[in-house]
């Protein structure tokens, strides 16, 4: 039992950390760059994607033995599109302002390559529980990635976080951060940070094993 629990936990953490969709796989960049102008937008986009991802992975996993191989992609798309429509109407009902802010990117979750990729590479080959846990992990990882971008862009671009002013009213907003180039700058900075951290950890592990590194 404990063996199964650790497997599930690892399955979950795979998407959150080791295979993070934004920082490691660098997938789904279109919403990552476009809607991360503020932390709220980023988080709600992440949650919407997580919902679609988890539900469609569950359904794909349940139907994995029924779906003919030849039409699997089309079937996945229909399943994903169903849940995207649900999310689309849900967000419209909850907050129209948020719906306007996210714009076409809610509908575009359909073509988010993370979701189709998970359905194809994981959910269609694993039982429902594993598929759902893995999809949840991926969704959380995606949300973390979006939040990392959105918070930095909101702090520098508006001096706020979740709409609360951090630096007082005399803050000088960095206009470029809420413009498209800002998204690329911040994503690049995060990738640089993670790459540097990964290299540092590798070097430390190498030193612990007594392996000499030639830089």
């Amino acid at each position, binding site marked *: 039992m404990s063996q199964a629990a650790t497997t599930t936990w690892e399955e979950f953490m795979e998407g959150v950390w080791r295979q993070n969709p934004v920082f490691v796989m660098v997938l789904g960049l279109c919403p990552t760059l476009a809607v991360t102008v503020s932390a709220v937008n980023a988080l709600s986009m992440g949650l919407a994607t997580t919902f679609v991802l988890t539900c469609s992975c569950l359904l794909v996993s349940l139907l994995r033995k029924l779906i003919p191989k030849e039409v699997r992609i089309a079937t996945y798309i229909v399943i994903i599109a169903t849940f995207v429509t649900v999310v689309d109407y849900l967000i419209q009902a909850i907050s129209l302002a948020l719906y306007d802010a996210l714009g076409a990117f809610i509908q575009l979750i359909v073509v988010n390559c993370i979701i189709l990729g998970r359905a194809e590479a994981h959910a269609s080959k694993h039982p429902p529980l594993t598929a759902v846990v893995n999809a949840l992990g991926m969704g959380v990882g995606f949300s973390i990635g979006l939040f990392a971008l959105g918070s930095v862009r909101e702090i520098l671009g508006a*001096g706020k976080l979740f709409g609360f002013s951090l*630096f*007082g009213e*005399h*803050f*000088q907003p*960095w*206009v*470029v*951060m809420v*413009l498209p*180039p800002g998204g690329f*700058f911040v994503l690049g900075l995060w990738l640089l940070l993670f790459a*540097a951290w990964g290299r540092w950890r590798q070097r430390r592990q190498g030193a612990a094993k007594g392996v000499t590194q030639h*830089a």
Partner: protein
Amino acid sequence: MTIEIRSAPHIKAPRSVPTIMRHVVWSLVPVCAFFVYQYGLSALASLLVVTASCLATERLFVRTGTQAGDIGDFSAVITGLLLALSLPPAFPLWMGAVAGFVAIALGKALTGGIGFNVFNPALVGRAFAQAAFPQAIATYSPSFLPGRFTEFVPSSLAWPLMQPADLMPWLKERQLDALAAATPLAKWKFEGVLAGAEELLTSLSGHMAVGPSPLLILLCGSYLAFRRFLDWRIPAAILGSAGLTAWLLFALSPERFPNPFFMLFSGGLILGAVYMATDMATSPVTPKGMWLYGALIGLLTVIIRYYSGLPEGVMYAILLANAATPLIEKVTQPTPFGKSALARLGQAKRGASYPLHPGYISREEAHAVTPKKRFLRNKPKPEERRKPEKSS
């Protein structure tokens, strides 16, 4: 006898990257001194802070990365000084530091350090500052204010991350109006006021909000061109093409467009033409390419100034031309001796192209020994040499 075959250049001078960069810095000293004389303490602090920020960033990336060069080669100093000269003198110091960091990090370190940069680092920093802080970069302060050597312009001492103070009340205290804090280009674009070419040339008169004197920059630049530290073709092409375009438009409708001298001597055109466009890593190396590159910058500058919402267009013109540099180099390869169109007439096949390999150019600069090709045809082969020994 061995004959060594190698391509030009055959005459070399013991001239390294730090030597060139050092001379550019020396030639910038009078320009910076005049800038400080115009704007006082604020300009001095801006020059120092921006340059220090560039140097610190260069050190950081050279140390942590595996990049060539270090702060000893003076290239980061040039970037810092040029960036500070292109920013308004009373630009908030913390924004200047951010611009300096971005200039080196984004403009230079990202693509691999000195010699590998695609865009002029100083202009990358300035473009970032313009995109991030459009209000502050459009706020110029008037030159030759009384008491400029004893007190800062209030906007330059803004707290980090905070907005600079509004200059208007400070200007009113000194009996100056808002127009004094606008550059001649902005005045022409938004108010229709035209400054004279003579006062622009020296930038000595009144409280004009201008950069260092174009005349001084031309003098310092001609020293560099005379010593062959920069190629005179690039500034000549830029000024020629900008002047020609402006003159053509002026001839077409004198009431709509200003005279060509105003175009040439206002804004940062001279500084950009002499010091920024001539950056060796980002400008073409072929002579024909230099003319083309300069003409492109001049044309784009005038077009941006006349037809866009921005008063000044030199920065974007140079950045665009930098992006076009590889293409320009490709289409303007010089014809090798014996491969001219006349010589080709008899041949069915066109002559092969000889692309100038960037690695080859940098090896020349670094005094590395070029691989020697020996002319082997007249040399007896080892077997042939052995033959007479056997027969005898």
